């Protein structure tokens, strides 16, 4: 589904429904700050949806639970039976439901507690990560718990599955998440990537197989290593099922922030997705998906954030070399984004896995030859995993105005891309928003995405335009980005200016060390002969100190030289201006 048509859809009853639910927050004014409303509204919405879904089987579940207790059936066996009885991946064994709760206003707090305890463990996990019992306490102390529950029983809170399909419920919930995220204002983007970017990433992921999926459907897995509210996984699913009804995507994700993790898991439960694939934890130090392989990886991991917290674990794993995730090397402690990239690479399905991951500019160039960052680049490039890097416009994200890049990394490059990297400059391909959200001042609309995808699929050296939009593509051999850093020294000389040799070797003048960056495509001896020796005949190189580095000078590669207008032409303009001046002077002052 395109952004435009989707917005059309969410503008109608879904948006309306979400607004009605969000309005319940008016009862929270004063007790909670506006950016905290979501901490009540989101879990309450989840609980009420489950309450409505479970209503028809409620009695049966309560009875079955008593029977199981008598029979002393516990753990997974009990879980299995109760889920089967409820007809969902969750259940509630409490004798209370929303309706019964409001019939006893005096005991609402303790009854609600009993009701929450009755949920299956997956729902309880969500409740605890939302820290929902704290919010319940605040509501009870502020005397609004009753009225909030009552509001959710009113028609505006009716979410029974026969009225609202799970797909629509997913949209409604997402709309509520968006309202919540936007209420954070400038901090919104910390756990929220806007849809337009995700749509582009999705297109990039499915591009090679799009036609095949359209015709035959597919069964795929997807993973987001810093999933936030699982937006990206949700959009990817939506997009795939839109292309083919027979597309089946099983989602996995890990998230470190308890609240957004709870939202992600609740979202999956509501949509009837793979909720057990949503994991809480720190991807860098506590990998929940070690040994997994995925078809698609889509991620917007934090950039410019240090990994001090995870340092010990990461360094331990790095010692295992390529058995762990961090074989090629470790980036500087101040920025963990390339660690996320390595985590993704480890989990890409051999032969076909594809990853679209957002990075900022530093992954392109940071670190000297031989440093961890350069070694990571060397690894992904020489292993032929980088398909394309796309520079996005600035001001596209909610929380940052800086330049960002999508790296398309794959373990199954098509033949025509083998040994090559495509760079796409899409920094001038955007439409301005009428209203900013945080730092987000521009959007990628369908036309922008189409143009970028055209450039990506064409895989050539060309400038693409459509109306005001411009996208430029360039392709390079992998080696193009590699260089040797050669150490050059100046030999000590005798009074005739000849190098003094000791055991046949020249001796360096102290402090004369210099280095030369020599592209892999150039012969090192020839380079030295041409560029160094003519100016310093005593120069010599110690090839043992050679270091290989990799760097992608994106901005320089897309630089266009415009020659200044010729001085003759400017002179002609000046003369013309002077003539005009003379005429005007005459008009003003006469011929005096």
């Amino acid at each position, binding site marked *: 589904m395109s952004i435009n048509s989707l917005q059309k859809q969410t503008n109608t009853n879904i948006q309306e429904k979400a607004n009605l639910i969000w309005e319940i927050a008016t009862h929270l004014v004063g007790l909670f700050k506006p950016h905290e409303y979501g901490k009540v509204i989101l879990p309450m919405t989840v609980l009420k949806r489950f309450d409505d879904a479970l209503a028809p089987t409620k009695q049966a579940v309560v009875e079955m639970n008593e029977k199981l207790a008598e029979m002393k059936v516990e753990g997974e066996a009990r879980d299995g039976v109760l889920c089967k009885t409820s007809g969902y991946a969750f259940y509630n064994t409490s004798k209370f439901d929303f309706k019964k709760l409001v019939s006893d206003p005096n005991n609402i707090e303790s009854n609600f507690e009993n009701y929450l305890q009755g949920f299956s463990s997956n729902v309880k996990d969500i409740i605890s990560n939302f820290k929902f019992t704290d919010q319940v306490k605040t509501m009870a102390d502020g005397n609004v718990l009753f009225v909030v529950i009552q509001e959710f029983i009113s028609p505006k809170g009716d979410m029974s599955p026969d009225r609202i399909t799970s797909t629509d419920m997913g949209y409604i919930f997402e709309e509520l998440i968006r309202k919540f995220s936007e209420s954070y204002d400038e901090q919104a983007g910390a756990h929220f990537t806007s849809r337009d970017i995700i749509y582009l990433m999705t297109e990039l992921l499915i591009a090679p197989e799009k036609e095949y999926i359209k015709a035959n459907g597919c069964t795929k897995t997807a993973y987001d290593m810093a999933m936030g509210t699982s937006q990206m996984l949700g959009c990817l699913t939506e997009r795939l099922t839109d292309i083919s009804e027979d597309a089946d995507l099983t989602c996995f994700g890990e998230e470190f922030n308890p609240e957004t993790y709870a939202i992600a898991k609740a979202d999956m439960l509501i949509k009837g997705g793979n909720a057990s694939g949503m994991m809480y934890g720190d991807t860098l130090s506590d990998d929940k998906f070690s040994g997994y392989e995925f078809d698609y990886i889509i991620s917007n991991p934090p950039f410019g954030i240090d990994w001090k917290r995870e340092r010990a674990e990461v360094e331990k794993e790095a010692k295992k070399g390529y058995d762990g995730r961090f074989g090629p090397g470790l980036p500087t402690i101040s920025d963990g984004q390339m660690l996320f990239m390595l985590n993704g690479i480890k989990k890409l399905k051999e032969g076909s896995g594809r990853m679209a991951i957002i990075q900022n500019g530093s992954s392109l160039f940071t670190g000297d030859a031989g440093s961890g960052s350069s070694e990571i680049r060397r690894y992904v490039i020489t292993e032929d995993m980088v398909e394309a890097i796309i520079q996005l416009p600035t001001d596209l994200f909610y929380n940052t105005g800086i330049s960002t890049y999508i790296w398309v990394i794959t373990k199954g490059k098509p033949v025509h891309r083998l040994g090559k990297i495509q760079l796409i400059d899409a920094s001038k391909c955007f439409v301005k928003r009428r209203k900013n959200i945080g730092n987000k001042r521009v959007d990628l609309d369908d036309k922008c995405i189409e143009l970028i995808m055209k450039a990506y699929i064409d895989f050539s050296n060309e400038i693409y335009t459509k109306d005001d939009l411009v996208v430029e593509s360039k392709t390079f051999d992998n080696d193009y980005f590699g260089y040797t850093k050669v150490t050059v020294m100046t030999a000590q000389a005798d009074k005739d200016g000849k190098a003094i040799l000791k055991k046949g070797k020249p001796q360096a003048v102290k402090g004369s060390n210099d280095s030369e960056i020599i592209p892999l495509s150039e012969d090192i001896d020839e380079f030295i002969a041409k560029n160094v020796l003519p*100016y310093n005949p005593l120069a010599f190189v110690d090839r043992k100190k050679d270091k290989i580095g990799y760097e992608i000078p994106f901005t320089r590669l897309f630089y266009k030289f415009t020659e*200044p207008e*010729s001085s003759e032409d400017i002179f002609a303009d*000046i003369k013309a201006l002077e003539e005009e001046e003379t005429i005007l002077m005459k008009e003003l002052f006469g011929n005096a």
Partner: protein
Amino acid sequence: MRDMISTGIVWCPSIPSDWEIRRVKNCFYISKVKAGTKNPVVLKLARSGVQVKDVTVNGGQMAESYDDYNPVQVGDLLLNPMDLYSGANCNVSEVEGVISPAYVNLRAKESINPFFFDYYFKIQYWTMAMFAHGKGVSYDNRWTINAESVKAYELPFPSVDEQDLIVDSIKKRSIQIDALITNAEKQIEKLKSYKQSVITETVTKGLDSDVQMKESGVEWIGEIPEHWQLSHIGNLAEIGSGGTPNRNIPEYWKDGTIPWMSSGEINLEYVNDTAEKITEEGLNNSNAKLLPKNTVMLGLIGQGKTKGLTAILNIECCCNQNLAYLIPNRFLFYKYLFYCFKAMYVYIRGIVGESQAGIYQGFLKKQYIPLPRISEQQAISDFLNHKCSQIDKLIALKQQKIEKLQQYKKSLIYEYVTGKKEV
């Protein structure tokens, strides 16, 4: 046209066939030693040149120690590696001292002319080639060209004699061009004063120089034609000021359609639109009033130039509390009032003072203006409209010429240092 060869370098595509390409490190040392001198002469790199920094003033700027600073000799070429997008940021020092180690200091290895390479780097900044060599996460001052890239930067290299000739030519031509620019700037200033005196003379003396005059008794007015009158502005116009709807109430501002003029917009002179708009609700719940077309506006406060400036509304509009509005009655033609205010600018500011003190409405009402018959006011306004627009056009032309001259200078430098123009 001399014989040119292609270099394969994107940012310097061709040079004369008898020139070479050399890298910075082949011609310069990157001087990086610690000064360690007591009370050194501290330098700064400004666009106009390398200057001595007054470290005694500018509180807080007094660094505890200049030990880490880099010594600069006469003839050193200094580059700013951190500001790569706002124009040329390099110069050859003509003074000795120390400078912050944040700058790149290039010292010639042999007898070459550093000014030649300074001009070349200026071109590199202007054509954004320096920017393209930069790296960073965002395009602000963290976008930097590193020392390694500077050292490997490729330079066109003519013989030293030719370098000297080129530098001499550029210097000579630059001086000439700068003189033309200064001259045009002076003319612009003269034209502005001319405009001011034409306005003052016309609104106080009228268009007919043969009429009998009388003393007005008002300082800025002097003599006026005998058949004219004098009147308080308060008798000739409805005067008031505007207001600002509460900024915290979105309904007053969001999706507003009523133009609302802020103090800064007095500079527009003729107001055809405003940046901010308010809603009907905002208008009803504030001191803002909807003013008719042809209302004359006056800036009431502002330490800068705003106070005393005037403008005419070409649209229906409201305004904030720092602007006065004047809706003339049938004895006063709005444009004549507008020109009177222009004539009074220096006078009013002189009385009110340059401080933050504002112009009070009471004071404004009591100011005298000369008052010819309405038909004469119209004739004066028409005359001034025509005259002022001619002067403005001439000023605009001269400004355009200044820009062209600046471009011309850059172009000449480019053509000389890349050998397109022969000396």
